[in-house]
Each structure stands twice: as structure tokens, then as C-alpha cells.
């Protein structure tokens, strides 16, 4: 039996143009800001469709908060539909990408936006549980899916 797509017809939004940052003060340090994180995660491919998380409006710059002093990053994402079983895969992708792109001292919290998912609490718990994340990434199928989403050149 062929499984159907979970969200067969998602709404696709236009990509925003990447704005070049104004030249920073050459002597000051550049703090990590939400836009920097967003620039890294916006091009992650959706597990189901050949669109980026940005195009599907799963993520936005406003949904990311960062506190550099405490070393914390919080990403709140919005799955395209309430029953999206791919929410955990998206969360895994985000976590994996941030692990690659930011130093280990940042603590990353990943949550679904309040009210955007039927099993909100369960998904949040699963995504922020170190053991369960590690276990999930040991599953070859899941690992394959995550890697494809992160490094896909389809977009």
C-alpha cells in the first residue's frame, strides 16, 4: 500500500531576498542574531516536498530567539498542518543543522508554535530529549532522511 502525502498540497510562499548586511564595525564583535540563524536554517528542505522551510512558512526570522550571553537558541516552528507527523523530522533537521553550524556551548531548544500541532506537548518533549534525539539519529532511515533534507540540492 502506498502511503499518501501527509499534506498533499501545501501553500508555497515566495522566498524573501537575502539582504546584504551593512558593513559592521571592523573592531567590534558580531553577536549571533536571529537573522544569522535564520539564514542557516531557512534553506533546509521539507521532508515531503521539494520546497524549503522558508517557502512553506514553517520558519521565520521572528520565530527565532537567541541569547548569546546565556548561550541559548530557541526556535519555534509551525508545521504546515496540525497532524503533521513530519514535525519531529523537521525538528531533528533543525537540531542537526544547528549542531553543525554553531559551537557546542549553545543550548538549542526547538519547539512547535503553541496551538500549531495536535500533539504539541509530545513533540516538544521528544525534540528536546537528548537520548531520544540520539536514538532517532541512529536509525539509518531517519538519518538518511535528515541528511537529504539538510544537504539536498533540489531547491
Amino acid at each position, binding site marked *: 500500500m502506498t502511503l499518501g502525502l501527509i499534506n498533499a498540497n501545501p501553500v508555497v510562499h515566495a522566498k524573501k531576498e537575502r539582504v546584504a548586511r551593512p558593513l*559592521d564595525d571592523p573592531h567590534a564583535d558580531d553577536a549571533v542574531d536571529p537573522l544569522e540563524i535564520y539564514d*542557516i536554517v531557512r534553506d533546509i528542505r521539507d521532508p515531503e516536498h521539494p520546497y524549503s522551510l522558508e517557502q512553506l512558512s514553517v520558519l521565520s526570522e521572528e520565530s527565532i530567539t537567541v541569547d548569546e550571553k546565556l548561550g541559548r537558541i530557541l526556535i519555534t516552528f509551525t508545521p504546515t498542518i496540525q497532524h503533521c507527523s513530519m514535525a519531529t523530522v523537521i525538528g531533528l533537521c533543525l537540531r542537526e543543522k544547528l549542531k553543525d553550524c554553531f*559551537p557546542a556551548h549553545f543550548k538549542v531548544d526547538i519547539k512547535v508554535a503553541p496551538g500549531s500541532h495536535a500533539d504539541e506537548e509530545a513533540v516538544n518533549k521528544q525534540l528536546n530529549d537528548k537520548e531520544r534525539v540520539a536514538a532517532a539519529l541512529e536509525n539509518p532511515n531517519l538519518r*538518511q532522511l535528515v541528511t*537529504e533534507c539538510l544537504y539536498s540540492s533540489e531547491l
Partner: protein
Amino acid sequence: MTGSSALNFWNAYWSGTLMLFSHWAMNFSIQSVKPKSEDIGVSRDELSRALLLAFAATPLFEPFAIPLLLDKLSSSLPSAKVESFKYLGYCAPMYGSDRMAKHGGALWSSVKDVLYTSPESALSVESESDGGMIFEESDIMVEALILLEGLMQQNSDLLLDMILGDEDINNFICSFLKPWDIHDTPLQLRQQLHSVGRLLAVSAKSSMASCNRVFEKFFPQMMEALGCSVGNHSDESFATEDRALSSRFNYGTLYLCVELLDACRCLVLGFKESTSFPDFIHEKWCCMLHGFCRSLINIFFSNLEAVSGNAQSSFAYTGVKGLQLLATFPRSFAPVSLLLFENILLKLVSAITSNFDKKFSWGLELKALVEIGLYIEGYQESEKAATFARIVVDKFVSWISSDEPAMPLSLKMQAICETGMTGISNMLRIVQGMEKAISAKFTQAYVDGNFESVELVIKVLECYSARVLPWFEMNGGSEEVAWNLAAIIWDKIDNSSSVNLTVQNYELLGAAMTAMKQAVRRCSQESQEKIVNRAFRVLSASTLFPLKDSPFATSLSNSEDSYLNHHVDRVSCRDEWIISLYASVVIALRPQTHVQNLKMVLQLFIMALTKGHIPSAQALGSLVNKLPSKTNERHLSQEYGVEEAIDVILTSSIWNFCQSNTLRKCSLFGGGNEIHNTKCLAGLNHTSVHISAIVGLAWIGKGLIMRGHEGIKDITMTFLGVLLENTNNGDFPESCDPIEGKEQEVIPLMKSAADAFHILLSDSEDCLNRNYHSVIRPLYKQRFYNSVMPLLLSSTRQSNSIITRSMLFRSFAHVISETPLSAMISEANKLIPLLLDSLSTLTEDVMHKDVIYNVILVLSAILMDKNGQVAVLENAQAIINQLIGLAAYPHMMVIRETAIQCLGAMSELPYARIYPSRTKVLQAISKALDDPKRAVRQEAVRCRQAWASIASRSLHF
């Protein structure tokens, strides 16, 4: 061929053509040819062109081609539309008006669709900020307009019937006849307004008859909407007209009106270029315009006034454009009389005077004046030219030295230069004004340091160097302007006795030197000789002469260390001015120009360079670069050739601080040459003088190296001598005995010797380049590289001292970063280990950070070059290790960034070579992910991805 066989042939041909077109219609799109078809050696453009020629081969294709192309217009692909319009535009004249007539309706509807129904024009950048009406048309619109123009030429009546009878267009224009606010109008309406304007303009431009029809149809309505009446007012009535203000700000109508004016002006000027110049004054449109001309000018005036009131730049655009158009109608167009023309100019000048704080409208007004000036120059309108010169140019010139208007000086100069550039007579007037200003204010600025005069003279001189002199060079003006400028400056210097030393004075000196160089380099040999002689007279009258009495000379013959310092300040500011300007003249001379009293001049420059006076050093470099080399080439009266000059320069005592001075030993100057001055600076240990001497020697060396003179060898050896000697021999004067003191003295000296290689090889904008007539031997950098490299390498191997090694590597770094890559790449194998050595040595001291950056740029260039690949592969491990170190270099962000980029490039090398380093690289990069600078972090993310993926097949997608 018999009749029947001919018939058969035609039948076959015809049926073939029919099949071909039906096949195209079904399957073939012009777009179906791939843009990149290099594999078959034919480009898409060539195929498209061939098909275009085939379509237009015979009018017989018309029944097939036109429907096919019209059909293609309905495609959603923008490029298909562009191509179709292009084909239609090309085929229409080939097929003839009779055949095209039946497609008129279809063609008009497709053009209207593109232009009016869904226009794709984009607001231009400058217009975006103020919600204006300056649009950039899309390619489709441009092609559609070209087609429309072609069709109008072919059969204007038919198309005009359609355009003027089109209800949509008529309704649209009527809807715009009532006042509305441009800023509240949606973008699409503005785009449509723009398109309708273009449509009317293209229609009116095609012929007199069509211009008449368009005017008859729309112009009276527009004038009524604007509240204009046909009037024959007296000229004084400009201000007294009583109009409802709102009607003057009917933007849509004004916009269309300006477009129409533009169109009929183009029409008239088009005729003017051809031989038969019709009497268009009796044309209907001309009579109409004639009647409304005065009222229109009035309305444009009030538009301009509105700008000064509430900053509506859109109205400024129509107002200024309208006035500019009316002012540039040919003289024979009676309504715009000379008086009206004067009024327009006066209005624009007064607007420029008062609106300088509104950048957009100020720029428009100036541009309009410049356009008017260019038109007058282009069409030889002598009466208007006189009026323009009187009202605009003279007025602007009077601004130079007066406080009125209260406009920033830079804007004043911009306005003055741009109006001057409209024609030679205007420019000459402006130059006269500028010369007067310099004459009047230079002494004030130069002697008293009066702030305002200094600022003014600096601006005028900058204007000369950057705009006026280049303009005369481009437009074939005489050298008189350049000559006059140089003469004025020397006169002024000559006539003043003292100078006030201020900071602004240095700025003024800089501006004067640049202007002097720019002026002298444009003069002919004879004028240059006159200038240099004049300058020498001033120089010889200064306190710098006679040399034996000057502070320079005494300081040299005196062995007291403090004496020199004492006298540095005693060189008066005026002397500094004179020698700087004289050096500027010498820098810009042509090789053929004869310099009088060369020996004295050389000695003077040598003295000055010991004070750190760089222009003197540059002038010496220029002299040795340009002096004739052989006696027979020399001018009879020329006392010196290059050999003698070098002899004078290098036997001077100032180089003797270097213990093993190769300059005095070398065969070139050896034999009879004794050092004249035994009381030399050698024992003085006066570091700053030594450094100045090294910098001076470097500039002299640069002059020699560029002409490929052998003397450069000795100069190079001197630098190497300074680098090697001071630490290896330990031969320091006793006063420097403590180690710290010794280092303090020696390191700056060695650093300047190392940096001399930078001066030798880098391109300078101030002197010794093509602009200043330098003698440049081809490939001189390559030759120097080949000769100096072995020396540097053997010295590096021999030296034990860390400081010496680092300084030698600094020199090496300068040499490789200035030599073209192609000269070095063949020896990349030898170069890379050295390069890595130099990086590891230089990273130990923060003062080398700029040099490290240059070296790493060379390394990255080698990494990117195909010819360097083998060498890179052989040294892969060492390169990676070095780059890992540099990725954490704390003193300069760009070094870290480039190092990480290079590491990223290294990941492309064969797997087996780089795999052993993978873990090391990833560890280093994970540290770089925490870099304080964002650019480095972003580079690190990319590099990490590249290195992480080399081990995992699954990461390649």
C-alpha cells in the same frame, strides 16, 4: 525550365513551405532551442537570427508567419514574447503595408495588451524614493514599442484610427483630466499612465500628419484641464495670471503633455537633421502649441515654485522637463522667443540658487540646464548661446568668489563644472573665472591660512585636477589652460614671502601638488621646459639655495646628532611648499624635457628626502627613470644622462650608514669615485634619517627598475645589506648597547628596508606611471622577481637571527605579492614551501599582519590556478597545517576568513591526499564556528560542510 516544370517546382516549394509553417506552429518554438548549444557549435542567437531572416525572406510567407507569431505572443514565457515582437518588427517592413494592413487589429490589440493592459515597467531607483514617474520598461515593452514605431512609419493612418479610437485609452486619458495626487495613485495606474504617454509619443513622433491628429484629439482637452487659455499676453503677465491652483497640479495631464512636447520636439529635430526642412509653423499642432505656449510655461513655473514650497519632486520633474523641452525647440519655432527662453533660464537659475537643499529637484534643474547647454552647442544656435552664457555661465562663475548664494561649495563647483562641460566657449569662461578666483584668494589662503579662502582654493584646484583638465584633454582643447594654472601658482608662490603653517595649509599643498602634476603632465615639451625653468628661478631664490648655506647642507657636514633634529623645524613652510611643488613639476615631466641645473636639483632633492620628504624622493625616482641613457641621445645642452645622475645620487653621503654599502663599492660607480663627504651620517645612528634615506632610495630604485636599469642591483644589495648586517655583525655604536635599545633602533630600520621592496614593485598613483610619462620596460616585475629571488632565498638560509629571518620574509612577501602570478606559477613547487615558511615566521609578530594577508592571497591564487595544482598536491599536508594555524589568527579578521576559504578549496583535492587531515581540519573549523566575526563563522560553516562531506558518500546529493 519549361512552364510546366516551373509550375511543378512552385507547387512543391509551396507545399513544402506550408508543411514547414504548420510544423512550426505545432511543435517549434523559437524558445525550444536551448540557450547553450555549444556542443553543435551554433548559438541560440545565431539560430534565432537565421530563422528571422528566413521568415522575412519573401512577402509570400506573410499568411503563415504573422498568425504564427501572433499566436506565440499569447505564450506566458517573457522571452517568447520578446522574440515574437522582434520577428514582427523585422518582418513588417519586408511584407509591406498592404499585407500587414489586414493584421492591424490583431497587432494593435497585442501591443495594447503588453503596454496598457498589463504593463511590466519597473520604477527606476531614483524614482522609487519619491513615488515618481520615472519607469524602466521591460524588454517586452521595449520591443512592442519598436514594433509600434515600425508600423506607424508604414501605415500611420490605420494604426492611429485604432489608437485614437480605442475606448480604453480615451477613457483612461479622460479620467486623468481631473486633478489627482500622484502619491495616492496605485502603482498599476502610474504604469498605465507611463505606457499611454509612450503610446501618444510614438504616435505623434511618426509624422507631421499623425502629430497633428494626436494634438487635435487630445491637446485642447488637456489645456482645458490645466486651465490654460489661448492667450497673447504681454511678457509681464507671467506672475499675474489667475488660475485655480489645483488645475496647475493636475499631474496626469501634465505628464502626458510633457510626453507630447517631447515627441513633437523629436519630430522637428528629426527634420532638422535631414536636408529638406519643412515649414512646420503652419502645421496644426504647431499653431496649437504656439497659442498655449505662454500658459504652459507659466504652469511649469508654478510647478517649480511648488517644489520650493512643499517638496513635491514629481512636479519638479514635469516642470523642469517641460521647461527644458520648450527651451530646446529650434529657433525657427517662433513661440519660444528669445525673451521666453531668457525667462526659462532665469527661472531655472533662480530655482537652482534657492533649492540646493532638495537634492532630487536640484539635480534635475542642473541637468536641464546642462541639456539646454548641450543642445545649443550641438545645434549652433548663436543667439541662444550668447543668452545662455550671459544668464547661466556668467552667473555661476560669479558664485565662485562670492558668498552668495549660501550654497555648499561642493554643489557650487558641481554646477559650475557641469555647465562648463557643455561646450568649449562656456568652459573657457569658467576657467577664466576660476583663474581669477585662484589669483585673488591664493595668497590669502597660502599666507594667512584664512579658512574660507583655503577651502575655496582647495575646491577650485580639485575641480581643475578632476574635471577641467581631463575635459580639455578629451575635447582637444589647447594646453593653455594647464600652462596658465601652473604659471599662476608659481607667480603666487614667488610673490609671497612667508607662509603660515596650519593643518589646512597641508591640505592646500596637497591639492596644489595634484593640480600642478595634472597640469604639467598635459603640457608639451616646450611649455614644460618653461614651467620647470620658472620653478627653478623661484627655487633658487628661496632660502634653500645656495646649498652650502642651507640647514640641510650644514646638518650633513656636522657630526652632532642633535643638530639635524634642530634644523628640521627650521626649514620654513615656504621652502617646503616650493620644493614640494617643484617635485610635482619634475614628477610630471616628459622624458624629453630638459631640466636645468640638474646637479643642484639632485642634491637638493637628496637633502630633502633625508627629512622624510617623500615627493622629493618620488621626483628623484622620476628623474632617473626619464633621463636619457646614452650620450648620443642626449640634448646638446643637457649636462646629465642617467648614469651621471645616478652617480651623483648614489655617491652622496647619506647612504653611508649601511656599513657594507654596496653602492660605493660597485663597479658601476667604482674606480674614480671617492666618497666626498667623510663626515657622513654613518656614525650618527640617527634612525629616522636612515629610514628616510631608505625610503628615498626605494623610490629611486623604483625609477630604475621600471626602465630596467642595471643600477637596481646595487640598490637591492643595499637593502639586503641593511637587513643582514645589523643583526649578524652586531656592529652597533656603543650608545645602543643594551639589547632593548638596539632592537628599538634596528627593527624600524630593517622594517623600512623590507618595505622598500613594496615601494619598488607596487604601482603608485602619485608618480612613475603611464600618466606621468614614465619609461616602463615590459615585464620588469618578472625580471626583478627572477633576479632577486635567489638572493633572498640564500640570505634566508644563511641567517640565524629570528628578526633578520622575519624581515627577510617580509621582503619576500612584498616581492611575491606584487609580482604577477603567471611569472611565479611555473615554479610553484619551490615557492610553496617558502611561502609556508614565511607565513609561519611572520605570524609570530603582529606588525606583519598586513603582509600575511598579502601572502595568503598569493597562496589562494596558487590554489585556484590549474598550473599550481601539482605543487599544491605535493605540499597538501603542510599547506593544510599552516592554514589551520591561520584560521585562528587573532589580529586580523580577513586573514582568518581567507584561510578558511583556502581550506574549503583544499577539500576539492583528491580524497587520498587530504583524508588524513580531515579530523584535524574539522576540529579547527569547529573552533572557527565560535569566531567573534560573522563573516568568519559563515565561511566556517561552508568549509565544515565541504570537509565533512568528503568522508560520507551520503552527503553528496
